[in-house]
């Protein structure tokens, strides 16, 4: 029955016009960035690297390549995508409560646990499809438009700024894993808005609350104050950009990036653990609350 329910939930999601807002928004933003970089990217790069010519030896490399464009897109877009995720997952229970269809659904011989499991699974599948769409546009389309070469990544630690150069054939697999981490982060947002959706009777509340929570937690995560520093390791927002860790390479004694290396696997594992922990927690709370909920709508 859960499989049937998941099919039905996916059918409902993809028959709603609002579902496609996210796909269109991503296509427009990525398209605009790619168009701008194609038109005037080299000038912009020259400006960025002006005065650093003596620090880098990029002889044969094409800095403005597909990998670089993808990094730039992800860095820009992954801050906005949670809104697009919450737009659907925040509506999954609250939207049905608002329409009155939750009542109809629960008069059928299905348990509330099955309903929640199916709805959450469908939400996670939607999130995956949205991210996959982003990967197609940001990575594959950029690779087709700009070609592939070494990836130069800007690293900022306090006031020191430096660049790490990953060789072209050492990049693609990093993106695959990075998208995995990005998915974990977005799935956490999906779980949060889904949980809030259980407590609401219309979808605006969960969507706005999700974005507010992300905003507040992100501010706490980025402010380097002693009180916040103690809390930061427990906030999921501290790990929303953990995907970047895949491009943080270890360096040898000569300062050269070690091929195939990841600077801190432990930090990445911790990030994944915290994100998965939050997903389990949010879904657990949602399930418990929904099973106790009186359907009054």
């Amino acid at each position: 029955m859960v499989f049937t329910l998941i099919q039905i939930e996916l059918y409902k999601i993809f028959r709603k016009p609002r579902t496609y807002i996210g796909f269109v928004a991503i296509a427009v933003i990525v398209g605009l960035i790619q168009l701008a970089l194609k038109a005037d990217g080299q000038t912009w790069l020259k400006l960025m690297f002006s005065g650093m010519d003596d620090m880098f030896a990029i002889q044969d490399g094409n800095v403005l390549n597909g990998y670089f464009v993808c990094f730039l897109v992800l860095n820009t877009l992954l801050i906005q995508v949670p809104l697009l995720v919450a737009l659907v997952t925040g509506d999954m229970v609250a939207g049905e409560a608002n329409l009155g269809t939750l009542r109809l659904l629960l008069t059928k011989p299905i348990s509330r646990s099955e309903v929640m499991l199916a709805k959450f699974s469908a939400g996670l599948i939607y999130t995956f499809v949205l991210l996959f769409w982003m990967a197609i546009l940001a990575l594959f389309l950029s690779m087709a438009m700009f070609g592939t070469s070494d990836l130069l990544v800007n690293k900022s630690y306090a006031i020191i700024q430096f660049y790490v150069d990953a060789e072209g054939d050492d990049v693609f697999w990093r993106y695959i894993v990075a998208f995995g981490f990005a998915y974990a982060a977005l799935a956490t947002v999906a779980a949060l808005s889904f949980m809030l959706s259980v407590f609401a009777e219309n979808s605006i509340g969960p969507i706005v609350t999700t974005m507010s929570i992300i905003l507040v937690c992100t501010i706490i995560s980025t402010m380097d104050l002693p009180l916040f520093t103690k809390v930061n390791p427990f906030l999921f927002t501290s790990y929303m950009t953990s995907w970047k860790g895949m491009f943080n390479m270890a360096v040898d004694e000569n300062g050269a990036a070690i091929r195939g290396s990841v600077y801190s696997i432990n930090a990445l594992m911790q990030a994944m653990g915290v994100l998965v922990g939050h997903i389990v927690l949010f879904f657990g709370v949602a399930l418990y609350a929904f099973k106790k909920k009186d359907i009054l709508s």
Partner: protein
Amino acid sequence: MSNTLISVNNLSKQFKDVHAVNGLSFTVQQGDIYGFLGQNGAGKSTSIRMLMGLIQPSGGEINMFGYRMPEHKKDVLRQIGAIIERPDLYKYLSAYDNLEMMARLSGLKPTRQLLMDQLDKVGLAARAQSKVKTFSQGMKQRLGIAIAMVHDPQLIILDEPTNGLDPQGIAEMRHMIINLRKEHQKTVIVSSHLLNEIEQVATRMIIIDKGRKVIEGSTSELFDPANTLVELQTNDADAAEKIGRSTWASRMKPEADGLLFTLHADDVPALAKDLVAMDIAIDNLSKRHSLESLFLTLTGK
């Protein structure tokens, strides 16, 4: 021999300080059209939602089809088709899609033929592919009935089924409820705050007020022709005095807008004749609705 489908014992629901349902007990037999009558806020919908497992009772017991609710919710709901309050459907989907989805959730693997037959029964076959958002309230109600009936349940629960319907829709609904019992041998629970709606379809009924049972019984038991209320409206200022001197005096009670008689239904023609004989100008002489009088008497309204 009657077969008890539903047995509710001492059912209660409290929302913070409000007792929505308070110690309600009743039974529904197989083949009944069981009327749930009460004013808005009397506790009808809360009771029905507890039967369906939508609301958790604060106390009491519900047994349906030999199963205890809500512990055996799936076993019970498999045998029920319901419209609770409004037929809220997925507006962005077609009638066919709505029906197919709900049939699958009811455990069926529906064929196109089955679904189209079901839509045909409620007169929506021609609109099968139209989105529900284009439907009138009556059409939504009919689609709701198709959804409730698609898995051939034993019991149909209709909570306020005539809400939002026009007079023709109300008549159709009434006809359909009676048919569900007569032609399909279904048991039906129907709730309404409209007394005449319940009286015209129910075989047994319960009247609830402020979450409590006021009375339960067969409609024929509850409707007692010996206590028919008849209203007289007249401009004759001496009417009460004239009637006070007649044999009708003990059965007359002055009311704000006329005089009210309590008598056997068979005595109404004799009363009319005597009023004319007493030279009382009759503006209007009408039987007050039988259940209305019972309801008002029992609830003290």
